[in-house]
């Protein structure tokens, strides 16, 4: 059961109030890591492998060492005491040999791999010197196709790091008795988050206190602190991570990369602050990639179009090494692929394969962008085969409200997959009504008759968020009445501080602008779950609610004693405690209560001093928001270019803390998804040379490519798993976009099942148009 918080005074939860973060940002006063400088800092420049695959024979750094401003040049030999970068969570032992060393040892495995690090007094000089480091290597043939048979990674190891199999139900029997079996071969391209701010790190070691500080942290500062503690064998109190402003996260920023360890180590060993800001070329070939998968999927259906079983074998192109996530994207692809449909039997087999490309990891909606494309393509194919409407086929398979909570015998991120709440059919109806589906079909048909290649596509999906296990926050009020909320969260641009301030303000009864939200500072709070996998609002938000309720109770108890009233007669409005029903009666401000609770206050009594409280939230299950998206688009018959004309996002958030922020997340996600569906792709030539190393080659959407995007935000299925009923918003925008666009292109060109590969670039769409002409000519 979900209940509204004990709200009073604030009335800010659920409202689209302006963000607290914005004022400094619009004045150029944000503090991104590149904006920080310390006296006597050194600049690091990384020398990167120009080879996709080679045996490293030697590195000559003598010329670089003699260059102006150079303080040191490191190769793997200088840091031989440090192990490869570990997984954040405990992982399968068999994956360990595939981890990435900080600097390449005897083998170069991708273009962009760090080989040496130059430290100099100036960034320009560091870059000059890096050009003077020469690499001697014996080039090997690169592995570029993850679906090809595995080859050797190292003695005794193949390029197949893991094969993950999951299944439930009687899959073989279902296929044996199927009315129809539909099989597809589908590919998703290599994409990444590509935040506008490149990565950066600035480390400083204070030997007087024996504390190492790392600026530029993001996403999971506490978890990363713990990884650094293990790597450097230091105490947790001896390493402090500090997050300032972050120029976009999307899952890829804020992971620990070789460069983060190198600046920390250099700050300690060279005893000067060390700063590293990557350039865009490095960013596109060294920061995590994602998405690239090839699926062989088939589905068995009965005569009514009800799915009896789904089977999927796929190949994940992991790139050259495993990074901090281990095999998480592989797991997520499998566990979330079935989506909103019943699917009584399911078998998936994921091949986790190494290639000689940039290592891959999580990018916003990891595994679900890919899995939604596969599942929804299958549903469209089934509809086509049975001659049914694509919406009707979906309706027949949707899990109903009556079946909630719906348990699927799979696990996701270590939890059982149990959809907590939802009414998928209701949202589908609302989405169709919102876009005027029937009228739209008529309009499209008229335009097609007039010769236009126009079409509409739809996809339904379930997302996930709010993964535990626990998060805690601390809230306090000072004697001026100012509130400080200390979290272990992370603010990567999503408006985390504003959302947390809203929950705190509403629960306590103060103006949300009086709440200062602290995040990303590991020395301010011992534990923090960070901002990843869409969990911040649910986990940190629920912990904030719990902490603030405790603080509120303490304030009201003290006020009751001072005002000689019963606590349940009192309420807090705008930071003032007074009688609930008696305006103008005796009252006291929260600041005054804080004064009365000071350690030396004569009125303190036997209470614990201070107006503060700590609260925790624990959960063992995730929340499952869901959505429907519809695109209307036009294809240019000559060039194959796709113009998206309209887009609808219908999304059930459970309960929105700030609808404006949720819509911002959804629209932003859709546009990133359009990039992956139509334009974005990291391409490589046959030698493994990356071809997408500038923003003129890796094509992200600009305003010109963006249609009007309508957002229908519903709150029909609050989560029963947390007191506010909230789900998550970070990834639902992007999840189904590839599937939606593929369906709409098929519809536009009249070639059902045509799109099997993302992105659907003009060249690929042109090939489809050719295929359609040929098939028309043949009939």
């Amino acid at each position: 059961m979900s209940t509204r918080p004990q709200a009073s005074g604030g009335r800010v939860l659920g409202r689209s109030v302006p963000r607290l973060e914005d004022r400094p940002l619009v004045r150029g006063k944000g503090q991104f890591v590149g904006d920080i400088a310390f006296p006597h800092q050194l600049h690091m420049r990384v020398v990167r492998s120009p080879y996709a695959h080679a045996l490293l024979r030697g590195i000559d750094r003598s010329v670089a060492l003699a260059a102006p401003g150079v303080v040191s040049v490191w190769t793997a030999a200088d840091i031989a005491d440090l192990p490869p970068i570990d997984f954040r969570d405990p992982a399968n032992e068999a994956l360990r040999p595939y981890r990435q060393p900080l600097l390449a040892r005897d083998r170069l495995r991708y273009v962009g791999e760090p080989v040496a690090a130059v430290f100099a007094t100036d960034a320009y000089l560091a870059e000059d010197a890096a050009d003077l480091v020469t690499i001697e290597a014996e080039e090997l043939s690169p592995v570029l196709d993850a679906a090809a048979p595995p080859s050797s990674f190292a003695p005794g190891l193949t390029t197949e790091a893991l094969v993950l199999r999951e299944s439930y139900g009687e899959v073989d029997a279902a296929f044996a008795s199927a009315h129809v079996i539909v099989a597809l071969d589908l590919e998703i391209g290599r994409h990444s988050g590509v935040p506008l701010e490149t990565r950066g790190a600035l480390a400083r070691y204070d030997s007087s206190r024996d504390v190492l500080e790392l600026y530029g942290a993001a996403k999971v500062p506490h978890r990363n602190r713990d990884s650094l503690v293990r790597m450097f064998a230091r105490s947790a109190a001896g390493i402090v991570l500090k997050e300032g402003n972050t120029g976009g996260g999307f899952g890829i920023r804020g992971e620990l990369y070789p460069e983060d360890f190198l600046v920390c180590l250099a700050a300690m060993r060279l005893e000067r602050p060390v700063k590293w800001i990557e350039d865009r070329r490095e960013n596109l070939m060294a920061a995590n990639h994602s998405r690239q998968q090839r699926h062989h999927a088939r589905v068995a259906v009965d005569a009514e179009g009800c799915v009896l079983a789904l089977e999927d074998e796929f190949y994940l192109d992991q790139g050259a090494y495993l990074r901090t996530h281990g095999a998480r994207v592989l797991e997520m692809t499998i566990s979330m692929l079935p989506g909103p449909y019943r699917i009584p039997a399911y078998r998936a087999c994921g091949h986790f394969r190494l290639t000689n490309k940039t290592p891959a990891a999580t990018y916003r909606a990891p595994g679900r962008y890919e899995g939604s494309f596969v599942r929804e393509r299958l549903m469209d194919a089934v509809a086509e085969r049975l001659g049914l409407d694509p919406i009707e086929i979906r309706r027949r398979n949707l899990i109903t409200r009556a079946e909630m909570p719906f348990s699927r015998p799979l696990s996701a991120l270590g939890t059982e997959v149990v959809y907590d709440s939802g009414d998928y059919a209701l949202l589908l109806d609302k989405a169709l009504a919102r876009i005027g589906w029937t009228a739209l079909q008529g309009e499209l048909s008229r335009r097609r008759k007039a010769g236009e290649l126009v079409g509409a596509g739809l996809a339904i999906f379930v997302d996930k968020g709010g993964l535990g296990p626990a998060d805690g926050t601390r809230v306090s009020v000072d004697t001026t009445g100012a509130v400080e909320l200390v979290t272990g969260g992370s603010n990567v641009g999503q408006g985390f501080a504003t959302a947390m301030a809203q929950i705190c303000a509403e629960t306590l009864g103060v103006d949300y602008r009086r709440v200062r939200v602290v995040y990303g500072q590991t020395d301010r709070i011992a534990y923090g779950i960070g901002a990843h996998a869409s969990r911040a609002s649910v986990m940190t938000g629920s912990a904030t609610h719990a902490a603030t309720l405790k603080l509120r109770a303490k304030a009201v108890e003290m006020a009751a004693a001072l005002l000689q009233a019963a606590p349940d007669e009192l309420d807090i409005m705008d930071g003032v405690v007074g009688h609930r029903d008696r305006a103008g009666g005796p009252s006291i401000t929260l600041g005054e209560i804080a004064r009365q609770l000071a350690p030396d206050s004569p009125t303190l009594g036997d209470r614990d001093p201070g107006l503060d409280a700590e609260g925790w939230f624990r959960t063992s299950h995730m929340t499952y928001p869901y959505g429907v998206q519809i695109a209307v688009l036009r294809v240019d018959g000559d060039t194959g270019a796709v113009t998206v004309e309209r887009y609808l996002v219908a999304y059930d958030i459970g309960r929105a803390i700030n609808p404006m922020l949720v819509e911002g997340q959804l629209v932003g996600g859709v546009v990133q998804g359009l990039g992956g569906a139509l334009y974005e792709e990291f391409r490589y030539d046959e030698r493994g040379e990356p071809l997408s190393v500038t923003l003129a080659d890796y094509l992200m959407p600009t305003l010109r490519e963006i249609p009007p995007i309508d957002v229908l935000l519903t709150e029909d299925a609050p989560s029963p798993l947390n007191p506010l009923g909230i789900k998550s918003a970070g990834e639902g925008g992007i999840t189904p976009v590839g599937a939606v666009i593929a369906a709409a292109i098929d519809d536009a060109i009249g070639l059902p099942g045509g799109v099997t590969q993302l992105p659907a670039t003009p060249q690929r769409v042109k090939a489809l148009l050719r295929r359609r002409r040929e098939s028309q000519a043949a009939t």
Partner: protein
Amino acid sequence: MSEPVEVTLSINGRDYPLRLEPRRTLLDAIRDECGLTGTHMGCEHGVCGACTVLLDGQPIRACLMFAVQAEGAAIRTIEGLAAGDALNPVQRAFIAHHGVQCGFCTPGFLMLATGVLAREPDISDDELREVLSSNLCRCTGYQNIVTAVRAALAELRGGAA
């Protein structure tokens, strides 16, 4: 590497006498030599527009110009948009319409929009979209950025009428 030269940059009405290598970009000079870090480095090849500043009123990419080339020009950066605590209409509109998420591209968009609105107050909506297409944002999906700039434009026109 080349010998440093003397150059004076005029930024937001203030002169910054600098001694720097001729190869140093205007972007790096603004950020590292003058300490005005609101102008951001996004790509260093003129695609993303995060480093957009106004040079004699014209939006330019500070990463594509050497600092020495900007001598004698009036440079305006994000730090010069507000008058004290009073934000300019575009800044206010970005807050009101949620045109900011991570805020990294924001200064570039604000300079681009401010420059364009000052130069072409009668700009059509299509042209405005075309101009705003020259900068990249990875968070907002642009929708709220356009809404914000349109609102600022309406305010400017209303004020002028």
